[in-house]
């Protein structure tokens, strides 16, 4: 990414480090995949009583899109959403279907190692020590683009059956934020669709990192202001449509501004681009005014980002901005990572200063900058 000023690269890298810190840890990710695999295998075996329903199980939501984030207070509590496609009557009673799934899972409790199993409005939730897994039963709708599904809803004020297409949405999202990535075609008839590998944040596209940062910002601001959170799928859909920026800070700013403009509308209606009947905004805001408050907070995010990259202010002030926006641990670790990366550049002779003394971080020494020969600082108090 080309930057007009050398230090802009520093703030882009710093923000990417913050985004890296808010992702699931590799250990948590492995654990989530292990639970997903166990549930998938279980439904595929006779013990579950489900092979006759030709189950197809696959991840949906943040886990599928690679935008899962950890809790900002470092609680180990995250959720993984799965779709369980079954060949059953699409008009079946939602209660009966959800109870069928829950009973089967309870039978396999010993091998699945969850602590409790709860029936929710649209899914069955398996609770583990530090995560939960939502299994949503559904039926593939024939004659529609892949993979439109009908899901079962126990909510008394909603229709018993609703059309959705989480996999189609995920593919649309991938196409919007990862235009250069070849998205693997998934085998429609496969019984178990592998969980996508967690992409390291340093090769993630800026917009995907921006979505993760927006989600973390949303969690902090909604808890602080006590208003209901904009659903991740809705946030991702709107953010994916924003004008791209030149670098992560600029991209996040653009996405936040666009998101603020869209959610502040009184007649907010956002449809799943892969299924028009699937209205992503149908369950938010639950409390009137939450969308306006979120829009207002996004305005603050834009202001703070402008202050972050402005050519004044101390780094202590800039760290405080990041702590306020994305959490204390993420900001502190982001700065530690920035120091480590700069140290590596110094050791390889690629640390450079432009004519004003502005340090440059492009990996190679840009023209107009002077590389600092490798050396060791000395003097002062030994630490």
């Amino acid at each position, binding site marked *: 990414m080309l930057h007009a000023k050398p230090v802009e690269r520093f703030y882009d890298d710093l923000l990417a480090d913050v985004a890296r810190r808010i992702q699931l840890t590799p250990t948590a990710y492995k654990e989530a995949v292990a639970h997903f695999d166990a549930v998938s295998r279980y439904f595929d075996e006779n013990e579950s009583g489900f092979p006759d329903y030709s189950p197809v199980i696959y991840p949906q939501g943040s886990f599928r899109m690679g935008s899962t984030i950890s809790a900002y207070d470092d609680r180990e509590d995250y959720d993984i959403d799965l779709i369980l496609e079954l060949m059953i009557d699409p008009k079946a009673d939602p209660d009966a279907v959800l109870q069928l799934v829950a009973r089967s899972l309870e039978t396999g409790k010993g091998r699945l190692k969850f602590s409790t199993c709860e029936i929710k409005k649209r899914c069955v939730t398996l609770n583990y020590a530090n995560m939960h897994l939502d299994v949503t039963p559904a039926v593939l709708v024939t004659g529609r683009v892949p993979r439109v599904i009908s899901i079962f809803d126990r909510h008394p004020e909603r229709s018993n059956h609703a059309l959705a297409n989480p996999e189609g949405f995920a593919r649309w999202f991938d196409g919007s934020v990862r235009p250069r990535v070849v998205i693997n075609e998934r085998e429609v008839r496969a019984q178990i669709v592998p969980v996508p590998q967690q992409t390291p944040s340093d090769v993630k596209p800026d917009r995907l990192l921006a979505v993760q940062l927006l989600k973390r910002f949303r969690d902090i601001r909604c808890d602080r202001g006590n208003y209901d959170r904009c659903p991740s799928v809705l946030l991702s859909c709107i953010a994916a449509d924003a004008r791209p920026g030149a670098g992560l800070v600029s991209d996040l700013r653009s996405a936040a501004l666009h998101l603020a403009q869209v959610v502040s509308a009184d007649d907010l209606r956002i449809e799943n681009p892969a299924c028009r009947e699937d209205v992503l905004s149908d369950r938010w805001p639950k409390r009137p005014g939450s969308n306006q408050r979120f829009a207002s907070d996004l305005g603050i995010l834009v202001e703070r980002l402008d202050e972050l990259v402005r050519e004044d202010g101390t780094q202590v002030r800039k760290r405080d901005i990041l702590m306020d926006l994305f959490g204390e641990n993420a900001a502190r670790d982001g700065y530690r990572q920035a120091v480590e990366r*700069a*140290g590596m550049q110094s050791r390889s002779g690629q640390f450079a*200063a432009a004519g004003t003394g502005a*340090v440059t971080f492009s990996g190679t020494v840009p023209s107009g900058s002077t590389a600092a*020969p490798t*050396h*060791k*600082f000395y003097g*002062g108090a030994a630490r």
Partner: protein
Amino acid sequence: MIADVGSNWSAPLCTAGSTGWRPRVARFFADMQIRAMTERFPTLKVVIDLPWMTIWEGELTPLSQPYRLRIVDHRGMDDGGMKFASPWPSVRLLTPIARRPEAPEVAIPHIYGSHDNPRGADLCLYHPQSRDWNDEMLVAKSIVPWSAEWLFYYEMWLVTGVWGGEEAEHGSVPIPLQPTAPQRQGSRPPRPIDAPVMRSFAYLLRS
């Protein structure tokens, strides 16, 4: 021709120096250093230009905070018949700096003396006995980028408490006293810097 350097107040400083080949060679090196500095770091301006010494002052802004610096390149000394010597270039920070508010008991790394010296803090950019710097290097291609690097790591140190740059082992080697500074860092808040160039370098004017 000025054989009696310093005692002749009517002679401009830039012409000071003894006659002979040494000042001419020194002048050549001075011009080379000045050209390189002007080309690479135009914000640093020459304030003293002598055959055996050049002093620049100006600002460097590694990230968002500007810092005023004085860089002194000694190429030799004048004792009436100029001698080449190789004392290392020095960098004095003329902008007040402070310790970390979270840990005020921890001294600022890699400076000579006290961080709140009212004449400014001298940066230690390399081990004087190492081969990191030698007198064939251009100040603009070594000392100045190292200074920008020091300032960057100082800002990062304020935030994280970690010095990210490579550090030489102290071992049992005593820290050289040059340029000039007391060895103990004080714990007082930053004081305004007052370091006029001629007062700091009074030895330029022999009595």
